[in-house]
C-alpha cells in the first residue's frame, strides 16, 4: 500500500451512491413491536404460587434492587415466608442473577422491554402480584437446565451396607467427615425458612455457617441455646426443617440433621460442660419434674440454668424417656443418651430413677415439697386395633416390645412376625425384630402391613427404603381384619385392601375392598398404630380436679394445667417427637420460671 494518490482514490468513494437504490435498513416500524429474543432478559415474571419467599434472590442482587415484601393473598405458612420479591427498576441492571439463583425456578424474565408510565414509583413492582402484560409471555430468559449457582446434591453420607447392619444393632450412619460437612454446609442459602418450621426454632442457618467456618464451639453453643438434646436430635430428629428447606425444591434438602450431629461429634465430651455454661446463682426455688424424657429434661435444663433447684423423678431405671426406650440402638446408641443426660446433670439437676408416681412417690408429696411440679408422662401405652384375636398374648404393642428390646429382655423372638402400622415406630419395631431374627435364626421374616398407600406413607422414605433393604416385606394399603389363632396359637394376620382411609367428611373411617383379602403368616403380630398416656398415674382425685379436653389434659400456652402448681408437657400434651418435646420443655420452663419470679417478669 503506498501513499500515492490515484484517480481511483478520487472516483472510488462515489460508489457509495449505489446505496441509494437499496432499501433503508435502519428504519423500523415503531408501531409494531419487535419481540425480544427467546432468551431476552426483559421484565421479570414470578410464579408466585411456586415462589416460597426464601429471599435468595434478594441476597444475591448486588444492586439491592429486590426487597421481600408481604403480598396480597399470599399466606405465611410452613416453608413459605409469605413474602415475595419486589423489584425496583430504578436499580435493576437485568443481570438475571436472581433468576439464576432462584431456589424454586419461579422467577423468570420475559422478553418484554417496553413499559411506559408517568409515575416513576410504579417501576417498583412485585412481579406476579402486580399484574403486567408480560406476565404470560412465553419467551424470555429462563435459567437454563443444569445452570445452577448453588449445588443441588447432598454430600454423601456413608452408612453400613444392609448385609452388615442387619446382623447387629450398631449405628448405621457413619456421620460426616469435616470435608463432607463443609460441602453440605456450603449448600445452605441461609433463608431461615427452616427456623420457623423447627418446633424448637433452632438457629439452623447460623450453626450451619459455623460448620462452614469450622467453628464448632460456636456451633455447639448455638445448638444448646435452643436444644439440650442436640446430640440426640442430630441422629433421630424427625427433621421437619428439611421438609421446608428451600434447597429441596430443585434438589436435595440440606442435611440439617446430619450437620447438627456433625457439630456434636466434633466436640469432645469434656468440653460440652464448658461450652454449655454454668447455671445462674441459686434462686432457692424448688421444682419437681416427673418423667426424665426430652420434655422433662429440657425443662430441667432451662430451669437449672436459671438457678432453680430441680429434681427429676423417673419411673424406669435410666433417664431418657422414649429416646432410650422407644428408639432402636442402630439409630441412637445408648452412650449418646448417657452423654446428653450427663450434660444436664452437670448443671446440678438431680435425676432420681426407679421413682414411679403412685408407687414410690405421690404428686401430693411433690406438691408439698416444691414450688412447682411438672409432669411429663409421655405416651407409654400402645393403642390396639381391637380386631378379633388382638387380645391374644402374642399380639404385642410395639412400644412394649421396643422397651423390652432396648432393655435386652428376652420376649421370645418370633421366627415370623407381622407388624400392623406404617409409621416410623412400625419401621423401628420391624427392623428391630429383623435384627433379632437374623441374630437368632439367621434369616429375616417380617411383614409390615400399613393402612396408607405408598403415596401417603407415614414413615420417612429412608426408613422404608432401609427396611426394604434389610429384607422386610412392606405392604401398603392393607387393613387388618383378624388375627388368626389356631390351637391357641397366633398363626397370622388377615387383611383387606384399603379403598379409602377417610370418609367424605375427612373423618377416619377406612373402607375396604373385601374381595382382595390376604393372609400374612406369623406367630407374632405387633400393633404399632399409636400410643397414649397412662392418665391413671395421676390418680383419681387429681384427675377429678383437673380440666380435660377430649381425653387430653387441658393446659394453657405455657403448659400450666388448671391447677396452678401443676404443669404438663411433652408427648402427653403435644408431640410426639423429640424436638417437639424439647420445644414444649422450653415453653413450660419459661412459664414456670415466670411463675416463680413474678416480680422479675414484670420488670
Amino acid at each position: 500500500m503506498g501513499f500515492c494518490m490515484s484517480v481511483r482514490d478520487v472516483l472510488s468513494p462515489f460508489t457509495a451512491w449505489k446505496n441509494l437504490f437499496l432499501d433503508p435498513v435502519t428504519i423500523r416500524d415503531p408501531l409494531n413491536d419487535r419481540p425480544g429474543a427467546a432468551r431476552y432478559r426483559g421484565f421479570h415474571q414470578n410464579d408466585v404460587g411456586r415462589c416460597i419467599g426464601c429471599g435468595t434472590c434478594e441476597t444475591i442482587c448486588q444492586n439491592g434492587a429486590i426487597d421481600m415484601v408481604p403480598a396480597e393473598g399470599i399466606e405465611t405458612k410452613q416453608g413459605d415466608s409469605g413474602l415475595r420479591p419486589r423489584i425496583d427498576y430504578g436499580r435493576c441492571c437485568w443481570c438475571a442473577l436472581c433468576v439464576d439463583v432462584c431456589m424454586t425456578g419461579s422467577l423468570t424474565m420475559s422478553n418484554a422491554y417496553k413499559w411506559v408510565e408517568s409515575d416513576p414509583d410504579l417501576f417498583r413492582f412485585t412481579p406476579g402480584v402486580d399484574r403486567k402484560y408480560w406476565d404470560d409471555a412465553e419467551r424470555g430468559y429462563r435459567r437454563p437446565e443444569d445452570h445452577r449457582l448453588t449445588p443441588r446434591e447432598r454430600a454423601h453420607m456413608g452408612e453400613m451396607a444392609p448385609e452388615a447392619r442387619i446382623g447387629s444393632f450398631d449405628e448405621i450412619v457413619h456421620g460426616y467427615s469435616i470435608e463432607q460437612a463443609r460441602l453440605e454446609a456450603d449448600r445452605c442459602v441461609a433463608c431461615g425458612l427452616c427456623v420457623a418450621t423447627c418446633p424448637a426454632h433452632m438457629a439452623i442457618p447460623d450453626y450451619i455457617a459455623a460448620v462452614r467456618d469450622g467453628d464448632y464451639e460456636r456451633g455447639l453453643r448455638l445448638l444448646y441455646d435452643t436444644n439440650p438434646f442436640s446430640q440426640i436430635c442430630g441422629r433421630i430428629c424427625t427433621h421437619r426443617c428439611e421438609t421446608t428447606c428451600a434447597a429441596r425444591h430443585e434438589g436435595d434438602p440440606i442435611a440439617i440433621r446430619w450437620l447438627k450431629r456433625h457439630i456434636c461429634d466434633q466436640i469432645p465430651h469434656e468440653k460440652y460442660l464448658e461450652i454449655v455454661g454454668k447455671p445462674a446463682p441459686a434462686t432457692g426455688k424448688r421444682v419437681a419434674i416427673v418423667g426424665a424424657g426430652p420434655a422433662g429434661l429440657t425443662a430441667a435444663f432451662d430451669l437449672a440454668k436459671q438457678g432453680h433447684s430441680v429434681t427429676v423423678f423417673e419411673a424406669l431405671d435410666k433417664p431418657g424417656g422414649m429416646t432410650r426406650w422407644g428408639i432402636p440402638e442402630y439409630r441412637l446408641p445408648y452412650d449418646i443418651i448417657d452423654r446428653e443426660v450427663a450434660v444436664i446433670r452437670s448443671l446440678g439437676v438431680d435425676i432420681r430413677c426407679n421413682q414411679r408416681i403412685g408407687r414410690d412417690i405421690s404428686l401430693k408429696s411433690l406438691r408439698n415439697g416444691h414450688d412447682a411440679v411438672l409432669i411429663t408422662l409421655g405416651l407409654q401405652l400402645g393403642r390396639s386395633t381391637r380386631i378379633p384375636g388382638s387380645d391374644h398374648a402374642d399380639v404385642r404393642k410395639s412400644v412394649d416390645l421396643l422397651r423390652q428390646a432396648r432393655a435386652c429382655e428376652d420376649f421370645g423372638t418370633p421366627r415370623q412376625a407381622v407388624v400392623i402400622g406404617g409409621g416410623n415406630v412400625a419401621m423401628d419395631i420391624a427392623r428391630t425384630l429383623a435384627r433379632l431374627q437374623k441374630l437368632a435364626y439367621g434369616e429375616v421374616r417380617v411383614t409390615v402391613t400399613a393402612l396408607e398407600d405408598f403415596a401417603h406413607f407415614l414413615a420417612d422414605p429412608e426408613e422404608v427404603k432401609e427396611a426394604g433393604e434389610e429384607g422386610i416385606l412392606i405392604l401398603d394399603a392393607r387393613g387388618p381384619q383378624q388375627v388368626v389363632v389356631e390351637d391357641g396359637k397366633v398363626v397370622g394376620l388377615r387383611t383387606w385392601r384399603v379403598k379409602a382411609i377417610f370418609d367424605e367428611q375427612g373423618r377416619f373411617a377406612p373402607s375396604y375392598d373385601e374381595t382382595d383379602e390376604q393372609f400374612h403368616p406369623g406367630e407374632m403380630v405387633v400393633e404399632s398404630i399409636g400410643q397414649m398416656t397412662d392418665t391413671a398415674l395421676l390418680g383419681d382425685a387429681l384427675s377429678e380436679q383437673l380440666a380435660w379436653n377430649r381425653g387430653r389434659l387441658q393446659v394453657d400456652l405455657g403448659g400450666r394445667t388448671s391447677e396452678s402448681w401443676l404443669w404438663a408437657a411433652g408427648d402427653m400434651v403435644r408431640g410426639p417427637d423429640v424436638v417437639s418435646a424439647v420445644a414444649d420443655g422450653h415453653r413450660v420452663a419459661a412459664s414456670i420460671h415466670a411463675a416463680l419470679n413474678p416480680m422479675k417478669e414484670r420488670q
Partner: protein
Amino acid sequence: MAYQPDRSQYPARRPDGLSRHPASRDTSTALCVGSLDIDLASGKYLKLWQGPNHPGITGNMSLELTVCGDEVVEGKTHVGYLHRGFEKLMERRTFIQCFPIVCRICVPEPDFNEYCYAAAVEELAGIQSPERADWIRTLILEMGRINSYLMYLGGQAGAFGLGVIGQWTTYVRDLMLDRFEELSGARIYHMFILPGGVRDGLPDGFEQRMEETLVEIERVMSDVLDVMFRNAVFKKRAVGLGYIDPALIEPYGVTGPPARAAGVAKDVRKDQPYLVYPQLDFEPVTGADSDVYTRADVRRRDLLMSIDLVRQILARMPKEGPLMAKIPNVLHWKIPRGETYIRGECSRGEYGYYLVTDGSGYPRRVNVRGPSYTHAMALMERLIVNCNIADVAGLLVSLHTYPPEIER
C-alpha cells in the same frame, strides 16, 4: 511566570522523513517550541479545551490544547469525568456479585471484562471452565471485537467528515447485536461469561444466522474499503498523521493495533495464547507505516480475520458438553489468598485484570488494565504535538480509546 514545558523527550523530526502531512513541515519548530516559553499573555498561544463533551472525543475525556495558530504545541489529557469506582465497588461485593458490574467497565466491548474477571476468579479458586464454555467464550470475544471495530471505523471516518461509513457500520453492528441478543439475552451488556463457564449454549439455528450476518458485514466492509480506504480525502488526512515510532512501543506500553501498525506483531492471542486460540489458524495482522491510515487498515483487516475466526469457531466447537464447571454455592464463595493477572487481546490492545484475594468472600483488590489508559493519556500527549487542530479528533480516534475503561 511563564509556563515552561519540558520538551527534551519529544522527537525533533519524524524518522521516516517522508510524511506529507502538514505537521511534518513543523518538525523543526517542534524543538523550538520546546525551548520557547509558552506565554499565554503574549497573544501567540491560545488554550483550547476539547471535551469532555465533544464529538471529536471518544466518550468523556478532555484535551487541554495549547495552540499556536491552528497547530497544537502542547496537549494535556484529562480524564476523570466518568469515574464510577468499579474497582472499589468490587471490594464490597461477593465474587458472583462482581460479575454484573465488570461489563460496565468498557461499554463498546464489555466481554473482555467478563472473560478476564471470570478467568481470574477461576484461576484463584482452582476451577477449570469446561471446554465447550471456552469455545463459546472465544466466540463471544471475537464477536465483540468485530463490533468494536465496526464502531471504530464509523468514528474514524466520521472524524474526517465521512459520515456515511458510520451509518453503514452501525447497521451491521446492529445485526451483530441481534446475534448477541439471541445468544446472551442482551444486546450491550451481555453478562454471559461468568466465573465457572458460560450461561448457556448456542440457540438453535445460530450458526446459520451468524453466517448471514458475517456475509453482510463482509459486503459492507468491501464498501468501506472502496469509500473510506480508497478515498483521496481520507488518505490526505490520515496518511502520515499520528506516527508512532516503533521504538516507542515498548517504553510507552503500546499494544494492539497501534503496535501492530508499527510493524510490531504483538498479539496476546498469539504471544500468550488463552481460551481456544491455540487451536485456531490465524496470524496477527501487521502494518508498516504506523500512522492513522495504517492503524485503520490494520483494524479493518483484523476485523476480517475475526470474521474468519468466528467461522472457524462455529465449525470446530463441540456441540455437547457441560457449560459450567462445578462451583461452590456462590452466596458464600470464599477464595483462598492469592493474586493473578489475566490478560487478553481486545480490539484496542492488551486487556488485563489483576485480582488479589485474601481468603474472604470478597476480592481484596481488583485492578483493570485497559489499553486506553496508556494510549489515550501518555501516548496521546506525545503524538498531539505539532498536530493540526482539525486532526486532533482523527488522531485520538486512531488510538481507539474508550474512556470508561480508563476510569475504573
